[in-house]
C-alpha cells in the first residue's frame, strides 16, 4: 500500500499523436492535503486529472491512486473518488434536489440516510433557495456549489477538481475555497487544478506544470524560497521607460510590469543585483525607487517556466 500518499505517479505520460500533453510526471500527493496543479491552459492539468481517475489511459507510466493501480483497475477507484469537471456536467433539466438524489442513487448511498444527507448538503452548500430550481437556470457560483455537493455526496477519500473556479466570481471563489479547507480538515485529499496564483497560494502543496512537464513542486513557501532568483521591485514614474532600460541588462532574467511597479528577476549567482538595476536605470536617466523583495508565486511561475518557453522559441 502507498501509506501516506493518496496519489503516487511514476513517469505518467500521455501523448495525443505528436502532442505530448503530459510527459513523465512523477507526483506524490499526501493524504488529507490540498494539492494544487498550477499551469496555463494546455499545460496538461486536465489530462493528468483524467488519467488519475481512469478516464484516459496513460501512454506510458502508471500511478497508484488510493491504493489502486492505474491504468487497469479504475473501476475499484470510482466509489472512492469525487470528480468535478471543468464544464458544468450535471443535468440542467433537473432540479438541485433531483441532481443530488440521482447522484445518491448512483453511488448507492444508504436509503435510510439518503434524504438527510441531501438536506445536509443543500444546507452546507447554500442551496436552500435553489432546492427546486432547475440546474440550468442557476448562476455560475450556484452551479459550482451544486457540482461540489454532488462530488462529495458519497464521502469520497479523494476529490479531483478540474479548474473548479474558472467560471465564478471572486466572492464565490473565496467561499468555494473555504469549503475545500473544511473538507481537507475532515481528511479528504483534494487535487485541484487552477491557473489563478491566489488559489495556488492556498494549497498545501503544489506542482507547476508547463507544456506537460512538471517544472517545480513543493509547498508555496518552499517554491517562493527556492526560485533561484533575486526579486527586485522597481517603482518608477515612467514604468515603460524603466522597462526599456532594464531589457538591455544581460543579467536580467525577466521584467514584469504590475501597474506602476516592475518586478525584476535576476539569477542568484549575479552579485549586487540591486546595484545592477540602479545602474541600468541611471544610465538611461530613469527616476525610480528600487528595493529587494521576496518572491511571490507569480515570480516563481515566471522563473520556472522561463526555461521551457526558451525551448519553444
Amino acid at each position, binding site marked *: 500500500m502507498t501509506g501516506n500518499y493518496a496519489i503516487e505517479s511514476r513517469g505518467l505520460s500521455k501523448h495525443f499523436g505528436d502532442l505530448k500533453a503530459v510527459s513523465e510526471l512523477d507526483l506524490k500527493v499526501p493524504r488529507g492535503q490540498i494539492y494544487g496543479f498550477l499551469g496555463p491552459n494546455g499545460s496538461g492539468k486536465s489530462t493528468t486529472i*483524467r488519467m488519475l*481517475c*481512469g*478516464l*484516459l*489511459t496513460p501512454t506510458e507510466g502508471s500511478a497508484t491512486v488510493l491504493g489502486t493501480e492505474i491504468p487497469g483497475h*479504475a*473501476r475499484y477507484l*470510482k*466509489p472512492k*473518488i469525487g*470528480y468535478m*469537471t471543468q*464544464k*458544468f*456536467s*450535471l*443535468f*440542467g*433539466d*433537473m432540479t438541485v434536489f*433531483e441532481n443530488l438524489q*440521482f*447522484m445518491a*442513487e*448512483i*453511488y*448507492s448511498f444508504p436509503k435510510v440516510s439518503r434524504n438527510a444527507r441531501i438536506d445536509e448538503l443543500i444546507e452546507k452548500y447554500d442551496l436552500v433557495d435553489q432546492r427546486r430550481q432547475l440546474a440550468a437556470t442557476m448562476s455560475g457560483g450556484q452551479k459550482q456549489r451544486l457540482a461540489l455537493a454532488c462530488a462529495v455526496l458519497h464521502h469520497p477519500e479523494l476529490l479531483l477538481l478540474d479548474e473548479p473556479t474558472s467560471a465564478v466570481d471572486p466572492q464565490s471563489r473565496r467561499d468555494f475555497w473555504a469549503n475545500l479547507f473544511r473538507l481537507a480538515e475532515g481528511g479528504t485529499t483534494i487535487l485541484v487544478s487552477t491557473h489563478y496564483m491566489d488559489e495556488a497560494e492556498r494549497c498545501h502543496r503544489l506542482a507547476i506544470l508547463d507544456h506537460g512537464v512538471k517544472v517545480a513542486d513543493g509547498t508555496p513557501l518552499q517554491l517562493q524560497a527556492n526560485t533561484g532568483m533575486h526579486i527586485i521591485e522597481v517603482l518608477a514614474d515612467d514604468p515603460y521607460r524603466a522597462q526599456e532600460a532594464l531589457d538591455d541588462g544581460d543579467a536580467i532574467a525577466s521584467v514584469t510590469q504590475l501597474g506602476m511597479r516592475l518586478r525584476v528577476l535576476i539569477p542568484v549567482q549575479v552579485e549586487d543585483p540591486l546595484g545592477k538595476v540602479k545602474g541600468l536605470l541611471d544610465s538611461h536617466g530613469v527616476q525610480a525607487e528600487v528595493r529587494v523583495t521576496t518572491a511571490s508565486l507569480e515570480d516563481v511561475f515566471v522563473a520556472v517556466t522561463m526555461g521551457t518557453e526558451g525551448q519553444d522559441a
Partner: protein
Amino acid sequence: MKSLSRLLAITKKEVRQLSRDRLTFGMIVGIPVMQMLLFGYAINTDVRNLRTAISDQADTHLSRQFIAELRETQVVDIVAYVATPAALEEQLRMGEVSVGVAIPADFDRRVIDPERPAVHLLVDGSDPTISNVANQLRNMPIAFDTSAPMRRIHNIEVRPSYNPERRTPVNIIPGLMGVILTLTMMLFTAVAIVRERERGNLELLINTPVSSAELMIGKVLPYIVIGMIQLALILVVGDVLFQVPMRGSVLDLYLASGAFIAANLSLGLVISTVAKTQFQAMQMTFFVLMPSILLSGFVFPFDGMPKFAQYLGEMLPVTHYIRLTRGIMLRDAALIELYPELIALGIFTLLAMTGAALRFTKRLD
C-alpha cells in the same frame, strides 16, 4: 442489487428528463400520427384516374364501345380526344396526359386478327407506377414497353378481377409500423446518449460506479415502453382511420414488436458510440432509414428487387418486421409460424449489442 438500483436510477433520470423535453415528448406521439396520416392517405398504389387522351381513327361502333369500357374501368380519366397518334405523343411529352390510346382506322379488322394488335397504348414510362398500371390494362406478363400493343379487348376488363376495393392503407400500415419504430427508436436512443456526451454529462457519469451495461440498459428501458406506446397508437389510428384489420393475435404482434424494438435500440446504441454530435447521430439514423423504407418491401415488392438489393434488405431489421406484421395482421399467421424472422431479429440484436458494448468504454480516449 446495487447494480439494479443504479440501472433504475438511470432510467428514472431519463424519464424525468424526457417528461421535461416537450419536443421529444411531442415527437413520440407526433411522428407516428403524422406519418400515418401522410402515408396512409397519400401513398396509393391502387392508381386510378390516369389522365388519358384518345385518338380514335376508326370511329366505329366497336371502337366507341371500347372507349366506353375503358372509361368504366376508372383507371383512366379521358381528358382529350385528338386526331392522330402523333398528337397523342405530343400530349404525352408535354405532360398533359399520362396515357395515350391510339385506335387505328382498321380497328374492327384488327380485333378479329390475332396477329395484329388492335389498340396502341402510349404510356408515360418516366413514372414506373403508371406504366405498371398500364401493364395491368394490357394484362399480359411481357416486358415493359411504352407503346405496348393490346391484343384482346376483353382483357381490358382487368380492374374488377384485380379487386377494385383493394385499399392501399391495409398494406401500408403494417409496413409503416416498422418504418416509424425504426425512426423513433433508433433516433431517440442514439440522441439520448450522444446528447449526454455533448453536454458533458457523460464525463461525470463514467466517473461514477455506473457500469457501461447499467448505463446503456437504463437509458434504453424507457424507450422500449415508448415504442410499445407508439405501437398501440399506430394500431388504434390504423383501425379507426383506415380500418386496417387485425386478423392475428395482438399478443403475437407485441412480442414480434418487442424483438424489433430491441433490434432498433441496439442499432441506436451502436450509432451513439460512433457519433460525436447529435447532428451526426441524426445523419447516421437517416442513413439506415432510407434503405429501411426502400429495400424492406415496405414500398416495393421484395421479390421484385435484384438479388443484391434483397441481401441488403435481409440485413435490415425492418424487412423481417414487416413480414411479421403483415403475416400476423393481414394473414392471421401465428408468430411461431414466422419464426425465421424472429431468429433474424434476434441475431441482429445480439450482433449490434455486442458491437455497442465493445465500442462503449468508460473512457474518453
